[in-house]
């Protein structure tokens, strides 16, 4: 299929950009890419492409013809694509208003039915915190969980185990991973001591993964920790960004009350991964098992949502609802991690739509779902999607889709918890306590008695000590998030 290049993306302008804007964008990139000035190889070719893009887009006649060609090509791509992307709107119409309004999009990404892929090989690295606080039950449980994973490796899989405290070392290398007696002996030598230098652990783990990087498989790092890293956070985040670009996902397991949940959420979120809170190390084994199983059932990896919003539209927030519930970054591209073979990635996007000039419908955004399918086809797969909504003077009387309403309801609870925590940190403990009491009321109404109790007890603690407990913070945060998962929301 002959491709049609996306000139709008090339110039970095929205599809409904006016000619002035296109001219400005063209000048900017032309200056940067001009053969007299450019430095990187390939820039001259890019310069020629940019020139061609401008030539066409600046001429209304040719632009119209090109727009048609592009739309046709993208429609064909979505029909034949390996992903199915479905977009639901919170309202069927956007109001013609002279003030901004909120509009939600529920985006579902599924594998196309006709496309079946074999189990991908898994390239896994377990990065285990062995700082002093892990001593005893925590390290014992993690050690046996790690051994259990090694025992289930299939012939094409690769696994390694890295431990870190003040320094990091490879405990089990991929060469020894399948030799059970060797790996058991190596793991038994793993003793708790030292601090929590996450950057060292990550660095060693990522270099193990890169050394055995499997372009046709799934490459994943699991970080298990119970403590805080100090001073090397920025370095860790940078490594996560590089890993994401390479196609490595990172997930986190935080045990107990004393790890830094915001940092770990940020770190894993950048790669499309997620963080899980365990109040007891007993469940680490089943959690690792599930993580490994889901990796072996990946349909597409390195998945992202790319694209651009129209001028009138800005992205206010994104929440992923499936396969796990987690808030996401609010800029495109969004790193989505892995798409399960029998599953869905579901996102809810909160948009602010600014007043639009006279028109009958508004194109909110042009998205592309981009990812790689291990084994099936080489190279990147791309499925374009356009989100369009008609405009109307009258509000849409029909109720919004129930999936959107129920998700937003629970996200509102999650946000209240975040707000209360923020207020507590600012010293506004009375306000935070009131908010938690209000949250508890909503949780009770939703039948979440345990979580409501936790919220109330934190509210009481705020009144007495002016602070939240580190465990309570995490319980509320991950507890309200977990409400969004299907097993929870379908329960009475």
């Amino acid at each position: 299929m002959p491709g049609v290049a996306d000139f709008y993306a090339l110039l970095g302008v929205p599809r409904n950009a006016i000619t002035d804007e296109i001219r400005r964008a063209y000048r900017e990139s032309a200056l940067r890419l001009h053969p007299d000035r450019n430095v990187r190889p390939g820039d001259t070719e890019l310069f020629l492409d940019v020139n061609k893009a401008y030539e066409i887009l600046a001429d209304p006649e040719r632009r119209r013809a090109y727009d048609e060609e592009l739309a046709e090509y993208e429609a064909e791509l979505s029909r034949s694509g390996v992903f199915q992307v479905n977009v639901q709107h919170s309202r069927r119409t956007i109001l013609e208003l002279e003030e901004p309004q909120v509009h939600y999009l529920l985006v579902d990404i599924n594998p196309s039915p006709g496309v079946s892929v074999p189990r991908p090989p898994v390239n896994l690295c377990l990065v285990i915190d062995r700082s002093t606080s892990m001593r005893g039950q925590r390290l014992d449980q993690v050690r046996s969980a790690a051994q259990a994973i090694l025992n289930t490796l299939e012939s094409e899989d690769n696994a390694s185990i890295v431990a870190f405290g003040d320094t990091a070392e490879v405990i089990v290398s991929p060469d020894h991973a399948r030799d059970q007696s060797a790996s058991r002996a190596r793991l038994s030598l793993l003793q708790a001591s030292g601090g929590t230098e996450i950057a060292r652990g990550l660095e060693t783990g990522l270099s193990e993964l890169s050394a055995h990087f499997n372009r046709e498989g799934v490459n994943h790092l699991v970080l298990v920790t119970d403590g805080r890293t100090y001073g090397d956070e920025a370095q860790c985040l940078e490594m996560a960004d590089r890993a994401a670009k390479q196609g490595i996902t990172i997930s986190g397991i935080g045990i107990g009350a004393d790890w830094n949940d915001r940092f770990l959420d940020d770190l894993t979120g950048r790669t499309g991964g997620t963080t899980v809170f365990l109040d007891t190390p007993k469940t680490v084994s089943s959690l690792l098992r599930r993580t490994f199983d889901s990796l072996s059932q990946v349909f597409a990896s390195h998945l992202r949502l790319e694209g651009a919003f129209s001028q009138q539209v800005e992205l206010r927030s994104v929440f992923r609802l499936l396969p796990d519930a987690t808030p996401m970054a609010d800029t495109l591209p969004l790193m989505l991690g892995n798409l399960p073979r029998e599953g869905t990635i579901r996102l809810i996007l909160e948009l602010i739509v600014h007043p639009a000039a006279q028109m009958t419908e508004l194109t909110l955004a042009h998205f592309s779902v981009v990812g790689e399918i291990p084994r099936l086809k080489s190279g990147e797969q791309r499925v374009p999607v356009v989100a369009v909504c008609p405009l109307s003077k009258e509000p849409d009387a029909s109720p919004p889709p129930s999936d959107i309403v129920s998700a937003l309801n629970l996200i509102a609870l999650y946000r209240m918890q975040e707000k209360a925590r923020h207020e507590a940190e600012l010293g506004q403990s009375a306000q935070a306590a009131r908010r938690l009491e209000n949250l508890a009321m909503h949780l009770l109404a939703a039948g979440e008695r345990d979580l409501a109790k936790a919220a109330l007890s934190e509210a009481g603690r705020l009144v007495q000590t002016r602070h939240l407990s580190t465990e309570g913070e995490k319980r509320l945060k991950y507890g309200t998030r977990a409400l969004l998962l299907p097993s929870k929301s379908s329960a009475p």
Partner: protein
Amino acid sequence: MIECPACKHTEFVGTMYCSECGTRLIHVSPMPTMTIPRDRIEAVALATKPSPPEGPDLESGAILGLRIASSGEIVSLIGRESYTLGRAIAGQAVVPDVDLEPYNAYEHGVSRMHAEIRLKPEGIHVVDLESANGTLINGHRLDPQAPTLVRHGDIIQLGRLRLQLISRYRG
């Protein structure tokens, strides 16, 4: 913008749940809160003037009362030459003689010191105490601090809270 009915937080049109208190906003209004021209409000107020109240619902000894238009409850005014109307707030130094907070005064835009009723030899006067949302008598807006004569059955509107004057005062 739309306003959360529970906590008065304002949100963009289209918002489904209040970001402040979690209240469901889907049915609040899919349209922004309208600004209605003042003369239209006054026209509506004039057109809906109720008939004079019947029956002696006042407490014994009272010659003045206020009927809350929305609920029909009656507040008797006893033993003074003048009554300030408003809403009391805990910890506030100056408290109005008649606290309208039990009748959702805040939601109706009643100021803390909103208006005053004065008994004068020539009759009963209502004075607007420079309230934020103004005082209307039978739909006519009063100038601040200007005493206006009222009679039995008149509608005194504080912000959006409508009260009907019950009077056996003869001056």
